[in-house]
């Protein structure tokens, strides 16, 4: 204290600097929180992925008046023509490479001798049918639909008008527009190492702004751009999908267009994948970023499939709330009763010190240890198995200290006058507690419950090996259940989808913030005296 200083002014100056640093670091915490919240919510709401494919991203519900139908339970929301082609040529035996499902693939085709059947055959193969051995033949559309409805794993191509109002099956849109080029282009392009045509490059090419393939890193060959013939299905699909072609040569019909692609050196143009295949024209890969809304209403309302790869999270949200309700129902009475004992009954001394030490120690035990204990005791020794009950019992133990401590503070803050009044009126101690003390402390108790539940909702480590990870709706106390937090982890750990992990995280954050906010509102209602106790949870 008696250190010589170079004067009051310099001390004040260093104080000002120190205060500025302290203030800066304090506001840094706000920055960190904001960064975390904004980052998670942004990534949860929007996705942006690099996609690389032979087909463009616009899809058609009824290509050539046909529709691709699958069973309602098939987790597929679109299909690319090469995949559909592969389904009918025995390239796929089951769904594992398409949707990761184990079901056998059952491709169904209409009898080729009927008009509709011939149309489907033309649609898939052009003039030379190459039906695979797996393909089942149905005599008419009604029976094909019936087969698809009853068979998970079946797929059929049928006239679109036969599908109106059908239940139990769904129509999936097809992506079939490719970029076809003269064989000279691709042969050389591959030599020159072009892997794919990026979206901006494609736009320039199709706007007639690129004169030579050299500009795209390809061979020294003039670009001969072809515009789709007017009035054709191809032209209609392209203009619907916003893929206009300008500045190119226009052939009079489809046959001439195909011939030009095949013969004219350096030629390029859009084409349906089926035609490209039939004419054996090479195609260029297309790559671009797809962005869109990640967290949609349907994501919240649909039930998940394929470990969360498709569908939404409705059952997981439901499981989460089931878990919270069950945990709350178990933890609240026990926690409040413990607090009542500590405040109203326990005498100062060794007993209360042991009880306090127990609560403090329990509060400090990490969740993974709770997980190990829950796995040993509830899952194995008590034979509850992986399920809702084991998980909730583990969570109850975890959040008990929070509830006990907060309720204790709240009970302590009830004015002695209230109790004395009640006792003086002839009420017993228990009556006083139940009718006077607990109601008076209710906001504080509720705050503790909300804080505890808020902790439970984000818990993962303790749940992975007690509650299981079934993403279907829990059917009972012993049914394995996946909740939001474990879903986030499993989506990440099983490499299923980062985007989906973020959308789920956004939902979880909203739940946590809602709990936090309501706890704060309650604390605000209680007023200053009790605020402190509730905060140091």
């Amino acid at each position: 204290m008696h250190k010589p200083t170079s004067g009051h002014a310099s001390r004040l100056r260093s104080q000002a600097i120190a205060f500025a640093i302290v203030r800066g670091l304090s506001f840094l915490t706000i920055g960190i929180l904001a960064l975390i919240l904004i980052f998670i919510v942004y990534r949860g709401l929007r996705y942006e992925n690099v996609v690389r494919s032979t087909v463009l991203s616009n899809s058609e519900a009824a290509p050539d008046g046909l529709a691709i139908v699958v069973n309602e339970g098939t987790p597929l929301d679109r299909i690319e023509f090469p995949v559909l082609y592969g389904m009918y040529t025995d390239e796929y035996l089951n769904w594992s490479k398409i949707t990761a499902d184990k079901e056998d693939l059952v491709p169904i085709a209409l009898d080729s001798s009927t008009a509709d059947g011939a149309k489907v055959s033309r649609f898939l193969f052009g003039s030379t049918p190459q039906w695979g051995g797996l393909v089942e033949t149905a005599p008419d559309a009604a029976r094909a639909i019936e087969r698809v409805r009853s068979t998970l794993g079946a797929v059929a191509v049928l006239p679109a008008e036969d599908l109106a109002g059908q239940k139990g099956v769904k129509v999936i849109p097809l992506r079939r527009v490719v970029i076809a080029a003269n064989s000279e282009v691709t042969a050389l392009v591959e030599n020159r190492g072009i892997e794919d045509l990026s979206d901006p490059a494609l736009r320039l090419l199709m706007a007639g702004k690129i004169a030579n393939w050299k500009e795209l890193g390809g061979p020294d060959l003039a670009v001969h751009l072809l515009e789709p013939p007017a009035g054709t299905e191809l032209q209609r699909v392209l203009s619907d999908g916003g893929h206009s072609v300008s500045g190119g040569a226009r052939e009079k019909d489809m046959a001439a267009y195909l011939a030009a692609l095949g013969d004219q050196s350096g030629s390029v143009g859009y084409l349906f994948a089926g035609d490209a295949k039939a004419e054996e024209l090479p195609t260029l890969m297309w790559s671009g970023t797809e962005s869109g809304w990640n967290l949609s209403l349907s994501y919240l309302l649909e039930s998940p499939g394929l470990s969360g790869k498709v569908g939404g999270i409705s059952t997981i949200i439901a499981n989460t709330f089931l878990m919270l309700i069950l945990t709350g129902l178990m933890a609240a009475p026990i926690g409040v009763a413990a607090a009542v004992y500590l405040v109203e009954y326990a005498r100062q001394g060794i007993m209360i010190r042991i009880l306090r030490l127990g609560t403090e120690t329990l509060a400090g035990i990490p969740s993974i240890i709770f997980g190990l204990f829950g796995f040993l005791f509830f899952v194995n020794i008590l034979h509850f198995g992986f399920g809702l009950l084991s998980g909730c019992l583990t969570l109850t133990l975890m959040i008990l200290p929070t509830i006990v401590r907060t309720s204790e503070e709240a009970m302590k803050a009830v004015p002695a006058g209230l109790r004395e009044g009640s006792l003086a009126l002839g009420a017993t101690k228990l009556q006083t507690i139940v009718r006077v003390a607990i109601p008076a402390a209710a906001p504080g108790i509720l705050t503790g419950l909300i804080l505890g539940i808020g902790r439970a909702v984000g818990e993962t480590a303790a749940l992975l090996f007690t509650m299981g990870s079934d993403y279907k709706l829990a059917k009972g106390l012993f049914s394995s259940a996946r909740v939001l937090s474990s879903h986030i982890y499993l989506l990440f750990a099983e490499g299923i989808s980062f985007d989906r992990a973020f959308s789920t995280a956004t939902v979880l954050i909203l739940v946590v913030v809602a709990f936090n906010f309501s706890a704060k509102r309650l604390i605000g209602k209680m007023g200053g005296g009790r605020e402190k106790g509730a905060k140091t949870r």
Partner: protein
Amino acid sequence: MKHRKLFERTAEGLLFACAALSVLAVILITVFLFQRGLSLFQKVSVLEFLGSTRWEPTAKVPGYGILSFIVGSFYVTGLALAFAVPIGLAVGIFLAELAEKRSSRIIHSTVELLAGIPSVIYGLFGIALISTITRSLFGGSGYSVLSASIVLAIMTLPTIISVTEVSLRAVPRELKEGSLALGATHWQTIVRVLVPAARSGIIAGVILGMGRAIGETMAVLMVGGNAPLMPKGLTGMVRTLTMNIITDMSYATGDHLTSLFATGIVLFVFILVLNLTVQVALKRSMAATEGGGGA
């Protein structure tokens, strides 16, 4: 009347049972964890378990050495505290001494929300942002000691801030007034009088944060890289005790499973020691500021 008395007695007994549940839970956790984990040492010596770095539980000649994970746990935790303690202290000081009402309210809400964010979300944030940043700045895979400790630092901040603030507020007013009256500036008073007086409370907060960090599982699991090796430098991958347990739990059987419970015992003992230290430190800080700090 007699009936009523019996009822009151029963009620009291029930209430006591509920209050004793925490103690019972601690005892049960201890007993079951030890009973299940200790049997490992019939096959592996304690020295080998704690002192070897060979973790090959599924090899033909299995190795159960968790030294690298113990080192990993302390490495990550120590580094996290090195980041979190200065910031936590500063924010605690700001809240206790400098903040005006409005910024105090905002920062309090911030700290509460930071404490409430689930660890799996910290993990997601860690892989998507922090790993990317450390990868581009320092090279390596980004799944590293450094990334893990940055995430842990953010997670332990709330604990350190809250306890620092409470301890500083508990320092008797007379100490502060005396220092100011002697001509010390506010800052000098904070650094030379208030912080030293609140020392044991602050230390308790840091230890509490350390316990949180050592026991943290999901966030470090997602950003730490999880290679079962001795961590090599800041950008090397790391596996902590908690990660070791959760990684192998899904498929371990027999001795391997037992070794995970034994890992749990080691973690549990560390946590208990830290917790007891906190209790002692807090008691001391309470005794030191007795009478003055009517919080």
